[in-house]
């Protein structure tokens, strides 16, 4: 099945009470399939066909605050349109689940994949998890609710998958029994924020300078604390649902996935579907005796600083391969890797490789070149692989 349908299948199984979504390429296959499920009575969710993404996330906000599980999905311009409400949702501590089918931002308008959309929302207070395969799409979608709804977290989450290069690609994936999913993810029972006349609460008040910082701090603490919860949920899921199809997911989910990192001197750091190609190139390089590995980032928010520090401890050269940028600075992941290397007092040479913007193919040759350049070490901090 298509990776898009791994998402819609997972959404069906987590039994959302309210779905509010607006169609945008390349997210459409997800919401079309969900519409079919509703039309055929396969899921009992209330599906609101809203007039924009801004309305989609706002309707989810209203639903979640009324005490039910809500889901939405979008891409690119749609996520950008939601931007204002993303911060409101996380500030109100509403554990909404969203899928972001990653797509480039305009202008020029472009419907193909890169990570600029969700990377631009990294500071919005949402958890961010990224998938490489259809199986990971399914698994992370189920897990994101278990994590977000945890009473020590209560933060919204987005799962990112690459538009077209993953969303529209057919891959095998394993679907557990509904009963097992129900056991893993019980019904959402909120206690902190719920609109009901029996117990009238005021949600979304004005916070003056006397209180704003304290409220923000509780949110940041929850985000930091969520690292442990994510780790626990990843482990629980991995044990309850062991990997069934080889190569479609890590045996045990973790914030990062290490590929041949044990003795690696050169490491790639990357996110999403490009990791598959990087793994292939690593296999070739390894056969030639190169000590090279990959660290795939699964949990991007909260940023798994310690896990990455540990993984990159003995590495001498690092190539951060990114499908996003911050004009006037380096790529967002690169900046954060530099920051943790500085903290770890590492002297590794780290370079930033910008790839695959707007759906440009990332070929095996590109990755080979990146390896060569990274191994050599010298050169510009930021290289564009056209």
């Amino acid at each position, binding site marked *: 099945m298509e990776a898009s349908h791994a998402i819609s299948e997972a959404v069906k199984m987590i039994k959302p009470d309210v779905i509010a979504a607006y169609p945008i390429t390349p997210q459409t296959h997800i919401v079309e399939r969900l519409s079919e499920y509703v039309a055929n009575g396969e899921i009992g969710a209330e599906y609101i066909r*809203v*007039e924009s993404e801004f309305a989609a996330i706002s309707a989810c906000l*209203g639903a979640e605050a009324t005490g039910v599980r809500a889901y939405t999905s979008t891409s690119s311009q749609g996520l950008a349109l939601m931007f204002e409400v993303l911060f409101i949702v996380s500030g109100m501590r509403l554990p909404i689940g969203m899928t972001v089918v990653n797509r480039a931002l305009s202008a020029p308008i472009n419907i193909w994949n890169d990570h600029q959309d969700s990377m631009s929302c990294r500071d919005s207070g949402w958890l961010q998890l990224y998938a490489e395969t259809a199986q990971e799409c399914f698994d992370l979608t189920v897990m994101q609710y278990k994590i977000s709804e945890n009473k020590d977290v209560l933060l919204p989450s987005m799962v990112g998958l690459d538009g077209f290069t993953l969303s529209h690609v057919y891959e095998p994936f394993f679907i557990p029994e509904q009963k097992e999913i129900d056991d893993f993810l019980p019904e959402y029972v909120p206690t902190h924020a719920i609109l*009901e*006349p029996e117990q009238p609460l005021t949600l979304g008040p004005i916070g003056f300078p006397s209180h704003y910082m304290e*409220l923000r701090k509780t949110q940041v603490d929850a985000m930091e604390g969520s690292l442990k919860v994510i780790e626990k949920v990843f482990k629980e899921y991995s044990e309850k649902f062991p990997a069934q199809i080889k190569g479609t997911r890590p045996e045990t989910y973790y914030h990062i996935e290490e590929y041949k990192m044990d003795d690696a001197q050169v490491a790639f750091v990357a996110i999403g579907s490009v990791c598959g190609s990087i793994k292939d190139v690593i296999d070739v390089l390894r056969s030639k005796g190169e000590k090279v590995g990959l660290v795939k980032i699964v949990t991007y928010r909260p940023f798994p600083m310690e896990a990455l520090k540990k993984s990159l401890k003995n590495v001498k050269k690092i190539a951060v391969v990114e499908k996003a940028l911050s004009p006037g600075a380096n790529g967002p992941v690169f900046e954060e890797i530099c920051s943790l290397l500085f903290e770890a007092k590492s002297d590794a040479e780290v370079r930033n490789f910008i790839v695959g913007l707007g759906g440009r193919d990332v070929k095996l040759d590109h990755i080979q070149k990146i390896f060569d350049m990274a191994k050599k070490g010298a050169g510009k901090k930021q290289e564009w692989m056209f």
Partner: protein
Amino acid sequence: MAIMGFPEEEYFACGHRACAGCACATAVRWITKAAGKDSILVESTGCMEVISTPYPETAWKLPWIHGAFENSSAIASGVAAALRAKGVEGKKVVAFGGDGSTYDIGFGHISGAFERGENFTYVCYDNEAYMNTGIQRSGATPFGASTTTSPAGKESAGKIEWKKDLMHILAAHGSPYLASASVGYPQDAFRKLKKAMETPGPTFVNLFASCPTGWRMDPSKSIEIAKLAVDTGSIPLYEIIEGKHFINPQSSDLSKLKPVDEYLKMQGRYSHLFKPVRREKELAMIQERITQNLQRIIDLSAKGF
């Protein structure tokens, strides 16, 4: 004891931080009374949200949620969907906001919700400008009003555009009940709020509410002036029920209208129309527009449209 047929129960507590004479605070108090205890309120960003919820205090005795400036009707759609999903019946969902959030920034979301036939009432407390940010013009600001972004000056007589006819735009969505009301006529306003909330589907009340600060007027006259707005025909009172117009007696006789000057002269926002010299042209345009607008609604009512 119930006064003028209003329920005694208070759901909007005193001690909120609205300006003296704020008729919008009066309007939201009536909204809560009309909604009653089994309701959920959704409010847009604006004066009434700011004055009622300085964390950790609140004036709301009903469940109340505020998200952003433009999205209260989308949030209300989500609340209504969640109630359906939970199988909860008999709970009202009421969204409200000022004219900025209703006529302008949130208009698309109201249109979307009304097109979908969502089951909630939207009330606009209409004080005819962005008062919370310092009296800037909105789509609801009338022609000739001086605001901080449509100031009167040597070359300008205030706002040069007419007020948006939101009632008829929303009526075109097929809403089963829409009403224009004023805080100057409390019982009429309360009846319309009740009726809107009791009618299934997306319903709308435009509740005209004076803002002494923004209109630069005597705060003790805020109800009087809202009445005068009706009595001069500036704000016609009427309902559109299942597509048919029903005009209030207060607005149905052109010969009984008071001259608009009486209403305009009480407000600093129109003072440039009278001083240093009387701007005959603009005043004539305002008077003529009132007559035309009212005549149209009178005709529609008379013909049963």
